[in-house]
Structures are given as structure tokens and as C-alpha cells.
């Protein structure tokens, strides 16, 4: 295969991905819109509060929120707005949605990115050093993985704060000032992710260790370090990365809890309060952003997989 045709395969993959992304975004906006409308009550009740029964006020609020239009008209207005990048104004926050959401995006991406990268790093180290070990080591690691997955994020976060912030005073309990403030939230968020990925990666490496190419590599006298890091990890990495990409969504879910416990700014906290007050423009903006991030990440993961694993390139042709 020539270098050129490899490029075409990659390009085709990217274009197909982009088309898919548009469909996914549209579907996400539509489902969210329907979901908000299906919830009992409405944002107008939240905006009105105890003024709900003042004559004329409800009509005024409905028209300023655009709720006096037929639902289909509202839906297409939203779609049109979003396509031009305008997410509208939140009547609950009394601010432009883009300003609110974009100002909160940084801290969340920082947190999610730090959690994802450190989870991958941790998993690499655990898998390389422990897979194929004694049954006892396997059992201990297995239990640790289960705990990491099952322990409630809220509880883990609180415990870390009590130990490392209030007790040892190593890290601040809240805020987003500098790298020190990122440590505890990152650990809280990465635990369940690392648990799942580690299970996955260790099993994959364990499987590979029994394959004939390993046996022949060992018979050539290759060092165990080189064997694992150069031969085994790339094999297991493709599958692990794909899983990591799909788990990104759960990272954002976890961020809602982590941001609340640690009093960190971020999109999770904004999303939570928006859902509670049925603040449609904010909810849709958050959904669009998260969906976009999700699509971008899974595209990148696929492309990395194409790069790591030559077989995938051939299969696409």
C-alpha cells in the first residue's frame, strides 16, 4: 500500500466521521428538546416563582421566553439559532448562554482531561507490571478494580477532602486555583474510569501473553520490559483506547458530582442547576458542547487506532 492511498483512507474516515457528527448533534438536540418538554412543569413556573398567579404576568413571561409559539416553531427556531452558534439568553441566570457555558468549559475540560490521561497512565503501569502475575496478585488487583468502580464518587471525594485537605493539609478542598486544586478532584474522577480500563487492559494483555508470538519472542531472549511495553501494550491499547473514548461521557457525568463536592467551577455544576430549573437554552448548549466533545474524542481515538494498528487501515479499503 502506498503512502498516498493511506492518506485517502484517513481522509475518507474523517469525512464519514464529520457527517456522522452532524447527525449525532442534531439527534442530541432533538432528544433533549423533547425531553425538556416532557418533564412536568415548565421554566415559566421557575421564572414566575410566587408571582405565578399575578394577572398578565404569565403571558408576559411566556412571550419573552418564546413559549407562546407552537412547539414545532420553537424547535426550528432553536435549531436555526444553534446553527448560527447563538445559544440565546438564559432567563434564569439572566445572562448570555454562550458566555456562561464557555466560561465554564475550561475547568471541566481540565478536570476531565487530567482524569482521562492519568487514568490511562495508571492503567498502563498497572497492566504492564501486574498482568500474568501470580493468582494472588491478580485477585488483589481485581478487588481493587472493583472497588474503584463501585465506590460512590461523592463518598470518595468527601473522604479525600477529609484526609488530604483537612487532615494532612496537602491540597485545598475547593476552588480551581492552580494545579494543587486539581489533584483531589482528578483522583476522585479517575478511579471508576481507571477501574474499568484496567480490567480491560489486563485481560487483553493476559490473553496476549499466551499467544505463540510471545512464546517465540521470549525464546529469542527479549527482555520482559521490552516485550511488554513494545509488543504487548500496542495490541491491548487499541481496544483500551476505544473503551476510554466511549467512557468520556461518564467522565462528564462524574464531573457533575465532583464539581459539586469540591466547589469547583465547571460545566457539570451549570448543567445540574439548569436541569433543576428547566433552563432550556443552557441545557441545550451543554448538550451540544458535550456531544461535540464526545464526537471529537471518539474520532481522535479512531484515528489513533488506525495509526497504531495497520490491519484497520487495510480493512477499511
Amino acid at each position, binding site marked *: 500500500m502506498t503512502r498516498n492511498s493511506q492518506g485517502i483512507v484517513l481522509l475518507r474516515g474523517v469525512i464519514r466521521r464529520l457527517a456522522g457528527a452532524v447527525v449525532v448533534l442534531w439527534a442530541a438536540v432533538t432528544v433533549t428538546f423533547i425531553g425538556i418538554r416532557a*418533564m*412536568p*412543569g*415548565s*421554566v415559566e*413556573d*421557575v*421564572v*414566575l*416563582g*410566587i*408571582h*405565578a*398567579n*399575578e394577572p398578565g*404576568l*404569565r403571558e*408576559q413571561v411566556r412571550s*419573552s421566553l418564546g413559549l407562546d409559539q407552537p412547539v414545532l416553531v420553537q424547535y426550528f427556531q432553536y435549531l436555526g439559532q444553534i446553527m448560527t452558534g447563538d445559544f440565546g439568553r438564559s432567563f*434564569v*441566570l*439572566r*445572562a448570555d448562554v454562550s*458566555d*456562561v457555558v464557555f*466560561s*465554564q468549559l475550561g*475547568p471541566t475540560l481540565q478536570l476531565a482531561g487530567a482524569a482521562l490521561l492519568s487514568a490511562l497512565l495508571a492503567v498502563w503501569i498497572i497492566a504492564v507490571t501486574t498482568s500474568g502475575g501470580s493468582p494472588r496478585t491478580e485477585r488483589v488487583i481485581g478487588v481493587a478494580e472493583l472497588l474503584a468502580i463501585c465506590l460512590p464518587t461523592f463518598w470518595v471525594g*468527601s473522604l479525600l*477532602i*477529609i484526609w488530604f*485537605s*483537612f487532615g494532612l*493539609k496537602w491540597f*485545598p*478542598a*475547593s*476552588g*480551581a*486555583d492552580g494545579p494543587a486544586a486539581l489533584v483531589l478532584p482528578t483522583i476522585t474522577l479517575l478511579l471508576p474510569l481507571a477501574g474499568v480500563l484496567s480490567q480491560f487492559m489486563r485481560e487483553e494483555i493476559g490473553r496476549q501473553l499466551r499467544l505463540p508470538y510471545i512464546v517465540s519472542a521470549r525464546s529469542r531472549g527479549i527482555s520482559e520490559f521490552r516485550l511488554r511495553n513494545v509488543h504487548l501494550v500496542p495490541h491491548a491499547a487499541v481496544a483500551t483506547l476505544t473503551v476510554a473514548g466511549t467512557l468520556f461521557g461518564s467522565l462528564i457525568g462524574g464531573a457533575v458530582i465532583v*464539581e*459539586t*463536592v*469540591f*466547589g*469547583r*467551577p*465547571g460545566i457539570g*455544576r*451549570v448543567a*445540574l*442547576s439548569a436541569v*433543576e*430549573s*428547566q433552563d432550556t437554552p443552557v441545557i441545550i448548549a451543554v448538550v451540544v458542547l458535550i456531544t461535540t466533545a464526545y464526537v471529537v474524542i471518539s474520532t481522535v481515538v479512531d484515528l489513533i487506532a488506525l495509526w497504531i494498528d495497520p490491519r484497520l487501515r487495510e480493512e477499511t479499503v
Partner: protein
Amino acid sequence: MKINRPLTAAGGAATLAAALLLTACAAGSGSTATTAGDPVDGGSITWAIAAEPSCFAPAFHQLLSDRAVIRNYVDSLVYQEEDGSFTPWLADSWEISEDGTTYVFEIAEGVTFTDGEPLTAEAVKVNLDYTRDASHGSTYAGLLGSVSEIVADDHTLTVQLSAPDSSLLDSLSSVALGIVSPAGVELGDELCSIDSGLAGTGAFVLGDYTRGDQLTLTRNDDYVSAPASLDHGGAAYLEQVTYKFIPEDSVRIGALKAGQVDAISGIPALEVANIESDSSLQYLNGPRTSMPFGFTINADAANAPWDDVALRQAFRDSFDVDAIVDSVYRGEVDRAYSYVGGDSPEFDESLVGAWGNDPEAANALLDAAGWEERDGEGYRIKDGERLTLDVTYDSDSIRDSRDKVIEAVQDQAAKNVGIDVNFTTPTWAEVSAQIADGTWSVYPGSFGKVDYANNVIGVWGGFFFAATEYQPTGAIEAATQAATALSPEDRIAALNTVQQELVLNETVFVPVAESTFQIAARNAVGGLGFDFSSANPDGNYGVWVAAAE
């Protein structure tokens, strides 16, 4: 959680959402022994508070707790003292006409907003006229509902009313009617954002702000407009004030104990002992002037059989309020007797011991109303229907073990008299929709530090019973008398009638527990206190931090 809901009553400093942040504690139980010594100039303080203001403009802020923040950079026309009286602030003096419909304020001279604009009567007029015009969408327009015209002449402000308004000074003392630079007023709710040019005459100036994280205020060195009655004039002691937004109670308290912050507000009753046992901390419990937590009951036929006042009274007397409040809050919260907070000068003492904890009488009332039969579980039935009372409390508003209080009531009402209390926690949107169409049953909650006359007119008349055929006519008429009373004595007499109507005669409100705000701080922090117009923690004008403990 942050939950934002504009809910101020027409005329009251009330928000349902305030219930979120209201935690209740026994007044006077605070340990105020501090090692802070005499005031120290300079330094900084870091607060941790639960809720981040979603709007920084007085006319559009949403939560009662926002007022503690806004108070730092916004002054009011008049200052509310601890005993509920009013003393000069931005208004040097005022005169009220004999018929109570003309107020003439002399506005302080030589005061400037922190954007450089001078404070004049015209500047005050621009603020008040903007807020009272309902089409501008301020939820506090109702506070100025009695105003017909405002005339400004240099430093003389004449406020003409269409009818006497005994609440006007209370309203003007509130952060909601705080005065901001006229340059920003026309921006309307755009003034909510921190970089909108929002400027007051206050002791601090808005500084750096990170949404979801923290707000910093810096000292206004040119401050000259402190309330006249304070023994401290000129600039504030502190150079810098930081508010960190930490929604989790346990993290806020832990951050204080670990020395990461200097002061916190919003302390759940069950955490008070934990704070008081720490000798490096002080604990302050605010005045019991807010409306107590209690059950508001729909007396309309839509809520049958509870349209029968005898049944409502039976429910009211079916449980032991003292025992319930004591067991849930372990002595940190006082039980409530009335719709008015126990420390308010408007509280009707005659309600103490006048109702409650009388299962025998309650059973007799229920028997007489024809609910004599019982089903297999011991609940009363009539014509095959169980005697059920639906209590719906929006989940966001539940704070400080209030769900435990309701469950204890549920338990006693079932055991003592056979009433089935059905407690559910839907969203505010659902609860509000039921209230809007009059089909609601019981709403438990409190409305914060309200104007007790206007709150009845605005919230009972204008919200709970706006869509029902039933009207709490006696209470609303008495409240109207109180609102238009010409003397404090007449106002208090009319408000006594309001309390008796709501709790005793009509029993559309069953009080349970007093509501207060709390502060905890390091001992090195001096001068902490409460803003008596809102019962919330005050701004930081009088606060200092001693250099070393």
C-alpha cells in the same frame, strides 16, 4: 444547590427559594466569645458561602442569601436597627405627612458612587422608578406598589403614595431597593453581570470574579456613607473580602475547621455542636425574625375534605411540635408558635401555648366530622375513602433535616389520630403548577425575612389562594389594615389578628420551627453580625481580622 428562583412576594422581602438556605437554630445559643480584640485596620477575610449569586444587581437578585454579598457594595436609603426601627443611611432624615401618604427624604450630600457619579435625589429616583415599573421585570416592583409618584429636587426626594404604607421604610432598608449608580440602571437585568458597570456607594467595590469559584471585593477607600447609628465611620477595616462558593455543607465546615477560610454561613443545626466544641471557632445564630417553617394548607373545596376547618385544626393539634423539633434538632432550633418569627416586635405572644399537641381534642373533632371508622392500618376512613393529607415539598427546598421533621409529623399524625400524611418531593415546577391552578394540598416551607403584612397579601392572597374559591379573607383584610396603618401600634394590633386568623381561626398555616441564618468563624474575626433588614449575615463593613490568635 443553587437553585435560582425569583420569588419575592409583592411587598415582602420574601423568597421561597430562601427556604433553601434557611437553617434554623435557637436564638442566643451562639458563642460570641472572640479573641479578635479591638478593630484592626487592613487585612483580608475569606468567606465560604453555599450559593453563588446568579445576579449581582439589587433589583434582580434572586436568593435571600445573595443579600449578604450585595450589601458589601450597595447602601440603602434607611438602616434597619435590631429592634426593627429605622435610622438614617443614604437619607440623612425624612418626614412623613400626617395622612401617611407623603415621604420627604433629605439625601446625604458629598456621597459618590464608586463609578464617580454623584449621589443625588435624582439618582435615587431613577433607581426606584425603574424598579417599580413592572414592565421592567424586577421581582421587587411590588415593594413600591403603593408609590404613585417620585419627585427629585437637588437633594430632596418626595415619594407620593396612593395610600399609607407602613412597610415602606422596611422595603427601603432592604438590599432589594439598594441604590446603584444611575448610569447602570437602564441596563435592566444586564446589570446582573459583574462587568456591567454595576456600582454602588458601598464600603467595598466589586473585583475579580470566577463563576462557580469565587468573588473578590476590594475596599472603597473613599467610603463616607456608613449608617449614622454605627460607631464606625469612614472606610471599612478590611482591604479585601473574598467569597468562595462551596455548596457542600460538610466541605464548607471542614474548610473553616482546617483554616482554609475565615468564616462561613449556612450551618445545619446538627453541625452546630461540632462547631461549638472547637475552641478556635465562634458561632453566631441570627435573629428569629424570619417567617418560621411550617405547613400552609389549602382550605379550598379542591382539597376536600380539608376545606373543613375542624379537620385542619385536628391535623394542627395531632402532633407534639416541641418533641418533634427537639428530637430532630437536638435543642439547636426553637419550635415556632406563629406565622411571625418569635424575635420580631410583631410576634403575637398570645399564640404561645394556644394550640398544638392535643390528640384527644383532635380525635374528637375528627369523630364529630364523621371520620369515625378505621381501616386495617388504623387510618380513619369515611365512605370507603382514607383520610389522607398530601404534603408536597419541592426537593430543592428541603434543607436542614426538614424532611425528617415532616416524617416525624407524619408518624405522629398517623399514630395519634389516624391521619395519613402522604409526603412527596416533586420539582418546584410541579408544585408551582399545582398552586397556580389551585389544586395543591399542603406546602411546607418558609419565606425568609418578610414584611408580615405584604407577605399575607402577596403570597397567601396572590399566590396560594389566587386560583381558589376559598379566600383567607379575615387574614387578608387585617393584613391590608396593617399595611396601611398610620401608627406602629395599629400595625401590630392588625398583625396580631393576621396571626390568629392564619394559625387559630382558619388554620391555613401550622407553624413548626423557627428559621434563622448562622455564621461560624475563626475567633480572630471580629465585628461579625446580621443585617436586620434580611436577617442574613451582614456585609463586611464592620468586620476585622486580628493579626494573630
